[in-house]
């Protein structure tokens, strides 16, 4: 049997054709992508209730300290599992309600004693991807002493057009159980349930080698006990239908080695709450090791139809809330972030200042929050 160094077109055609057969080439365990671990510590501190308002109750500032860990573990060559763990401690007084004080000024009633609570949130996400698509399954569980939530979701991404176009769709479901801690002198519910379902579709399109745009639509329906058990005279409809449209834009600027982010969200629901959110960020690289990211977020909201600063009593009001979150107000936050890259890990520190204020022509709700947030953390990649 003589060997001959020669290449024959028919042979090569057959050989390459045979290579599409699943049994022909060894499946061989692939080396998985590297595992990554991320950690963040966040400190969130609210300002004192504004001095210009009279306050009844505890003045202690509301604080949150949170630890977050995320582990991303590839499974084989076509899937990855992400574990998320969050543990946060919340302490301080929270606003109960507002009453009309002397000289017609709103007066804030804070919860009597300082609250101390813990929340833990565990979530797992499995993402399976193919050449032109990916599917994610997500499930999680959040617990507080008075609140439990179980949630799950499904997300699908399809790439078209040499990956220049991506269509995303998602479904999220959450089942929440509210079990308010009873305090004397308050008539509260014992146990209530709240469900929410949200559907979303989105489309991302590459515009040119340095810009990409994304549009999204989301419809969410909340049903069940939507009243806030910790607020005075709070009574809300047991259904809330939300529609959210969003737009995102990313532009890379080669001359300055920076990236511009623009995100806009328009929100409306059947409680007549409407809001607009604009977030602008600038990612400035300094060499390949340092990134500084200033960003600004503007938020504007119109009040719910049953919102009022004071509870005026009477028989005509089926629904009522003086929750500041349902009032008309505007908020602005500015943030600065710094990322330092090392060979196998990176370090992040971010600070954010958030301030809100009632819309002009409205009586400002004294419970509107302003806060300062600090986040530090690191990302590690194991090769």
């Amino acid at each position, binding site marked *: *049997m*003589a*060997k*001959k*160094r*020669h*290449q*024959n077109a*028919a*042979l090569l*055609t*057959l*050989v390459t*054709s*045979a290579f*599409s*057969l*699943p*049994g*022909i*080439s*060894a*499946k*061989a365990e692939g080396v998985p992508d590297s595992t990554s671990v991320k950690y963040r510590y966040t400190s969130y501190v609210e300002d004192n209730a504004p001095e210009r308002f009279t306050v009844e109750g505890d003045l202690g500032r509301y604080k949150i300290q949170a630890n977050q860990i995320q582990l991303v573990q590839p499974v084989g060559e076509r899937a990855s599992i992400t574990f998320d763990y969050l543990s946060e401690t919340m302490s301080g007084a929270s606003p109960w309600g507002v009453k009309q004080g002397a000289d017609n000024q709103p007066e804030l009633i804070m919860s009597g004693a300082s609250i101390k609570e813990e929340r833990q949130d565990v979530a797992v996400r499995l993402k399976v991807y193919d050449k032109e698509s990916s599917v994610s399954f997500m499930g999680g569980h959040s617990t507080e002493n008075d609140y439990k939530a179980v949630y799950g979701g499904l997300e699908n991404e399809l790439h078209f057009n040499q990956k220049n176009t991506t269509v995303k769709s998602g479904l999220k479901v959450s089942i929440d159980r509210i079990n308010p801690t009873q305090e004397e002198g308050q008539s509260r519910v014992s146990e209530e349930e709240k469900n929410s379902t949200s559907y979303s579709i989105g489309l991302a399109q590459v515009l040119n080698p340095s810009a990409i745009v994304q549009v999204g639509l989301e419809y969410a329906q909340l049903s069940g006990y939507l009243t806030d058990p910790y607020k005075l005279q709070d009574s809300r409809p047991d259904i809330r239908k939300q529609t959210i449209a969003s737009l995102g834009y990313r532009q890379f600027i080669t001359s300055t080695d920076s990236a511009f982010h623009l995100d806009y969200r328009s929100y409306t629901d059947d409680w007549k709450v409407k809001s607009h959110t604009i977030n602008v960020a600038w990612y400035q690289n300094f060499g390949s090791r340092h990134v500084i990211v200033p960003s600004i977020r503007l938020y504007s909201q119109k009040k719910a139809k049953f919102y009022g600063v004071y509870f005026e009593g009477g028989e005509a009001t089926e629904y009522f809330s003086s929750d500041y979150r349902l009032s008309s107000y505007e908020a602005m936050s500015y943030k600065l972030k710094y990322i330092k890259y090392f060979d196998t890990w990176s370090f992040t520190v971010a600070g954010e200042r958030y301030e809100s204020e009632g819309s002009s022509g409205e009586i400002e709700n004294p419970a509107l929050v302003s806060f300062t947030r600090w986040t530090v953390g690191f990302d590690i990649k194991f090769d």
Partner: protein
Amino acid sequence: MGSPCKLHLYLTQKQANTVPQAALDCVFALEKKYSRYQSDSITSIINRSAGSGQCVRVDSETAALLDYANDAFEQSDGLFDITSGVLRKIWDFKSGILPSQETINQTLTLIGWQKIRWHNPYIELPEDMELDFGGYVKEYAADTLATFCMDNGVTHGLIDLGGDIRVIGPHLDGKPWKIGIRNPDNPEKALAHVESTGGGVATSGNYERCMVVDGHRYGHVFNPLTGWPVQGLASVTVQAEHCLIAGTLSTITMLKGRPGGGEWLQDMGLPNLIIEEP
């Protein structure tokens, strides 16, 4: 698969507990999937649909096998044809009677891969036409089995599926496997040996079944273009990286006959052994 199959594998104790059984399951699964005789095989499902005007959607493995058949058909100028199985029905070797040319001509109208509508993953067969994966699925099974064994850490062994051989790796001491090539005149005796430390060896012979009519020998390998058994070569053995390739090349060479087959095969540059008919 209708012929004796042998697995020679060097295994660790741990592998010995699982690999042989799983390997057999692997072969039986392919047999079940592509057998003409099992009514729930994909072959039977496709064949039953012939002439119904309905197309059948096939799985990705079957699709790859059909694509391969299409390439082999084109590269062999129509000689490698998985629709030629119907010729077996008119050539009855037990009877010793040749079919009439009229019968052959009628049967030829039911042969021709080009008459089949194959748009991956959909296939549609005209009435009375049939597919037969038997011409290459055994070779493919040998490769699949070898791949399976290698995926399970087996590095030394030989798979013999009724003469279609795939060597996983040499003997433990590194010595090559010796594979005997049958003498067409005396099939119990080896005419020659080839050595292999890895890769496929396949033989296509015209001697296993035959009939002699008026002193003329008629073998069981049919030319799908003429409907008659091919003549000229008694046996073709090819060595290639994969058993499937070796098998396809030996089949096509056999169909091309003498002298075209030998020349065509030499052009491949693969080790081979051709035994001509006397």
